[in-house]
């Protein structure tokens, strides 16, 4: 399964995401702020990043910029913001996020996103119920 880095200064969000994503078999690494995030990006080489926008010091946009400056295959990034904030969402899209969620969010949405990127669902073409999952 995927190696996921969560970068958020809110311990409640880190705990919530760890609980749901670990249950689905993913390996979770936690960074407490942007600086820590950059360090763990280098150290853990994740497959997917969940990134909070507003953090003291180095913020989410700064971390995103370093991720996008990296050579090689683009890393999927899900950005989180504190409240429905069209301005920060707009900036996120322009800067190159792949997903954007406003807090509070339903944990299932994050699971669905991660599953659509890494899951091995076999699609069906007859529209009869959910595809099989492996």
């Amino acid at each position, binding site marked *: 399964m995927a190696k996921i880095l969560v970068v958020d200064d809110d311990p409640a969000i880190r705990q919530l995401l760890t609980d749901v994503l670990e249950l689905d078999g993913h390996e979770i690494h936690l960074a407490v702020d942007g600086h820590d995030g950059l360090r763990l990006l280098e150290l853990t080489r994740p*497959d997917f990043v969940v990134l909070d926008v507003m953090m003291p010091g180095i913020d989410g946009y700064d971390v995103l910029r370093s991720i*996008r400056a990296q050579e*090689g*295959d*683009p*890393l*999927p*990034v*899900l950005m989180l913001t504190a409240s429905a904030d*069209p301005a920060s*969402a*707009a900036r996120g*899209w*322009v800067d*190159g*996020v*792949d*997903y*954007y*969620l406003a807090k509070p969010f339903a944990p299932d*949405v994050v699971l669905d*996103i991660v599953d*659509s*990127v890494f*899951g*091995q*669902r*076999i*699609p*069906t*073409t*007859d529209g*009869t119920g959910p595809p*099989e999952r*492996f």
Partner: protein
Amino acid sequence: MTKPKVLFVDDEPRILDGLRRSLRGKRTEWDMSFAPGGEPALELLATAKHDVIVSDMRMPGMDGAELLTRVSIQYPEVARVVLSGHTEPEAAIRVAIAGHRFLTKPTETETLTGVIDQLIVKTSGTHGSEARHIAGTARALPTLPGQIAELGAALAAQDSDPARLPQAVSLDTGLTAKVLQLSNSAFFGARPKNAGIAAVVTAMGVPTIQALVSATAELWSPTTWEPETEAFLRLTLRHAVATASLVESVASPAHRPHAHAAALLQDVGGLAALAGLVGGSPHSVDLGLGRCEGMPFRDVGVELLHLWGLPAPVTAAVAERDLPHEPAEAGLGVSGAVRVAHLLIQGIEAGDPSIGMHDDELKVLLAHPQMATRSCDWDAAAEDAWERAGKWPAA
């Protein structure tokens, strides 16, 4: 319900015994048989309908590539897996054309059972067996004469212009499919995760690409298309290339490689049906209706991508291309991006982007923050992509 039938072929009794032992746990799920070579394998296939064949490559007499090529012609509905140790490059290319999945010895039992379990599943509930049968006849996708010439020129220019080859491969539907299919395997150089075609081409190496181009050319060069068939092929490939080029701007950074591949492969079912038609298969194909044996091309295409084991987001985006897309607030993903680019190009093809059958849906999609926040004239971008695709292949 009868159990799925799986046939294992290897000339070494020790290997067959090992498989029998390690797969004992699957006896309740699968009906397994074991053959010590190509001839006995074909005899077994003649006696009962099988679902999956797993074959070694190096065997005395008929080797794995020859066996699987014969199976693709006589029993196309049987999914073809290669399980092999070291393979000579020449044989590897032959089996690359004939096989569906490639595993190297030694392989973990879970990997092998995972692949077989996947291949037992068919993607079309209503047309499962027919779609599998038609998809199984396709070994390579049809190409326009200019495509092979373009690839040949890119290969020849490899030293002076190394960027040209990945570019040429990334516009070639058949080669993109083949490269993605093979890149899953240690046989042909392991794939970097979520990689674009350029990275995969570099990882596989120029000689392998060269050999694949030759093998494809060999399958297609004698073909002179009927005018109606060539027009269909030209239009299908132009739509694919234009959508692939446009989706590079539509998709978010991490989704670009998969969205590009899905756009290029969106009509793979029609191409596979056409391949069968030229290859002399008895299936009735209606290019106008987009149906083969009464079944939508899409069912054939999705089944083929599933057999080839392409990344799940690519296959899903092809499966969902014609379904109205309700964009998730969190982002369009691969499927949404491909749908947007497809609809935009379709609007240009129809002649006037302002009159489309999917106006309301497109309006909603273009209003999604992922699209709306980037100040881009999407109709103009689509027009540009369509024009450029018209100049391809150059030859």
